[in-house]
């Protein structure tokens, strides 16, 4: 099964590409990623304005999690280069950018140059074929703000900051006259107007299938008040030893059921989560055109997520959100304690399944998921404010209306509707 672009009800689509490294070049991949983490600012990626999240990892085959003694060691002769990302727009355009923007093309050549069969970014046809061939379908993809593109969020964050500045001046200016307020209000509207063009519609967090306006219960709070930066995680949990497929299929079906459901997924109840994906890996694809020299001896579940704060807080929250989902998915994987019902077992299990994250990128590292949802909500609501005709409203009425509107606008619970 190949990845299909646009398969999730979201303006963002994920890519999970895993390529085999060239024999003897695994160390170079590791070195490039390690150096990249310290040196590269990934400014070019940021300037593209359509990538929310990306991470590059070199995974050693011999270090794949082996969580029970009867799980056989993998015997691939080479390691793997794992690239996970999500982007707005079209898959072809995304890959085109990799090839056409010179700095990025150089970066791609360096990073994927250590992978077997990499044809180089040019010609595009073979490059796309290569990425497509090595992409794996995600069984579940979750985004905390699926209806927002990177540019939406940039604009939303700027609008929110402008409104906050405006509100702060209002609260510190004593005895502002209604006339002065109207002038200042007009200036503020002029400042934010160019940024409202990309505002989402009336339901900024829902696309097609979800119930609009449905309140999602939020569990847990944000560690450190949500000010501790984002954490990217990648965990690879062994599901079952081949030739077994029964558990793998059941887990895949369980995840797919959550993915396809119109009710909020357990991930939606975790306020610290930006993105998550689950990929069932039943094998790793060898170099294009070669006959498989080896096959994975165990099926794995790859879990990739970007969260605010501590991983343990997120896992506790996920467990509290839907303990049965956790039990049905990770609880059935190899090495999960039997009858391990409780968040402690999930924390321990994921800790043992973690892969090292080497070169991470997030578009909004300074903003929590809740911040972004709040900003997106405000962004959408400001369109309504702008749309109302207030030419005949007196200055005093405008001032009063605005104050009431502002209270609604900054109501924190709106971020979870």
């Amino acid at each position, binding site marked *: 099964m190949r990845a299909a672009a646009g398969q999730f009800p979201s303006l963002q689509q994920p890519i999970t590409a895993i390529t085999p490294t060239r024999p003897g070049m695994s160390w170079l991949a590791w070195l490039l990623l390690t150096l990249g983490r310290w040196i590269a600012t990934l400014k070019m990626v940021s300037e593209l304005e359509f990538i929310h999240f990306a991470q590059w990892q070199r995974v050693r085959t011999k270090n794949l999690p082996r969580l029970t003694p009867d799980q056989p060691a993998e015997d691939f002769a080479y390691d793997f280069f794992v690239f996970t990302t999500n982007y707005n727009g079209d898959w072809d355009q995304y890959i085109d950018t990799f090839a056409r923007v010179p700095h990025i093309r150089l970066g791609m050549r360096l990073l994927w140059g250590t992978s077997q069969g990499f044809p180089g970014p040019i010609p595009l046809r073979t490059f796309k074929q290569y990425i497509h061939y090595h992409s794996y379908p995600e069984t579940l993809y979750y985004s905390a703000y699926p209806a927002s593109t990177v540019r939406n969020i940039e604009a939303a964050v700027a609008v929110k900051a402008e409104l906050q500045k405006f509100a702060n001046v209002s609260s510190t200016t004593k005895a502002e006259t209604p006339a002065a307020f109207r002038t200042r209000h007009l200036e503020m509207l002029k400042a934010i107007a160019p940024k409202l063009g990309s505002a989402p519609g009336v339901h900024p967090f829902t696309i097609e299938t979800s119930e609009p306006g449905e309140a999602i219960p939020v*569990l*847990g*709070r*944000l*560690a*450190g*008040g*949500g000010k501790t930066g984002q954490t990217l995680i990648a965990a690879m949990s062994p599901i079952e030893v081949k030739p077994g497929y029964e558990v793998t299929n059941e887990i895949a079906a369980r995840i797919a059921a959550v993915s396809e459901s119109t009710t909020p997924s357990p991930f939606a109840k975790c306020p610290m989560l930006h993105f998550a994906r689950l990929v069932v890996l039943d094998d790793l694809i060898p170099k294009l055109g070669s006959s498989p020299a080896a096959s994975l001896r165990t099926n794995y579940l790859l879990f990739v997520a970007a969260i605010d*704060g*501590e991983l*343990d*807080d997120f896992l*506790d*929250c996920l467990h*509290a959100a839907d303990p049965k989902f956790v039990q049905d998915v990770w609880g059935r994987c190899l*090495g*999960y*304690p039997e*009858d*391990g*019902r*409780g*968040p*402690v*077992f999930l*924390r*321990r*299990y994921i800790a*043992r399944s973690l892969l090292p994250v080497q070169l991470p990128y997030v578009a909004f590292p300074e903003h929590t998921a809740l911040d972004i949802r709040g900003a997106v909500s405000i962004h959408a609501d400001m369109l309504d404010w702008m749309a109302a005709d207030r030419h005949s409203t007196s200055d005093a009425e405008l001032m009063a209306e605005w104050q009431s509107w502002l209270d609604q606008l900054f109501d924190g619970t709106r971020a979870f509707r």
Partner: protein
Amino acid sequence: MSGCVPFSLAKLNPPGLRQSLSDFFRDTVFAALLRSLCRVRPVWHVPFTNTVWVTGFDAVQEVYARNHDFEVPYAQRMEILRWQGFILALQDTPEYHDMHDGISRLWQPWDTAHVQEIARATTESILMTTSSEDLDFIQGLVKPVLMSIVEQHYGVKMPARQREPFFEGNLAGSSFVFRGPKITKKQTDTVTPAIDAVWPVLDAAMAAAREHPDPTTVLGRYYSGGSPDPSFTEAKMRSALMTMIGGYLPTCTNASGRVMDVLLARPDAMHFVQDAVTAKQDGILLTGIQEALRLNYIIPMLWRRAARDTYVGAGTTKHRAIREGTNLAVSLQAGMSDRRRIKNPKRFDPNRSSTVRMVYGHEFHYCIGASIANTVLIEIFKGVLKRRPVHGTKKDRWVNAYPWNLWLTLSEADVAS
């Protein structure tokens, strides 16, 4: 009631050197010992004994979650108390689920509105009529409010002369239940008259409700359909009533005192909860209360017994063998200050993840009356905090582990208004 002299826990434990030494040992020496063990040996087999101390966060959660391997060992104590069917003393059996369902049917979630109304009215009537100087927070406010719930919501009314022995009998009973595995003659001699002051009150209340059921109370609801629910016999109801009183009066008294102790000692905590009260944010106030309780928990350790040969550390590579019959002293107090899981555990941080606060237990045997306790605590603290409490001039007193007299001086002004 047996004997002529009413039972009094306070008189049995007069203030003096013995009580002071006991306070010092419990609050300073023992607490420091638990913290140290948590850091260096989270699962410690006490040499030459059949006892293991469990103090690490993960290990504590594991023992609580694996309730089939680590059973509650209170059966013998229940016999002494003539109390069959105490839910916290039951294993995961049909009897447990029967009792759990019965209690859930009678103490329904929407009862919290009634509980809130009673707690608020009682708190306000006490605070309106109390002099602002030297309010005894425990005896003058917490105790009457908690008892008002027992009388007006549960429907256990009693003559004034029976209130003190009933209240103190419950406290003594609770202390007895949660002591270590060894039952001494002194413990039995103390608790027998204590519990003799409790059962007759419950029996009289049930008899009165049978005759004249008041449907606004839980007991009245039980009898209001004519004959009681055959699936939940009167014997079970008697036990359920004792559960909901014996598990509520002592713990809420203890918790209230300890929370107030933390608030008075930490200006940042006091500011936080007062701000929550001013903003009329009950949920945030509750977060502050629970964070304070995490810092000063009601009981240093609870007990479990290994039902079979097993180990602690499921899901990790480090297993600590536990023999069948081993007593486990499990410390939620130490667990909630484990640096491996909780950053800066000594800091009052209401923004930390709520999942690190196990103030109502964890997984199986999670407090069945948590919603009632939360509601009452919110109302008590809301009432007091509005009046800006500071330490009173009189000396505080503890009786065993219970805060007994906690003197406050209140401000005349209602700051929230």
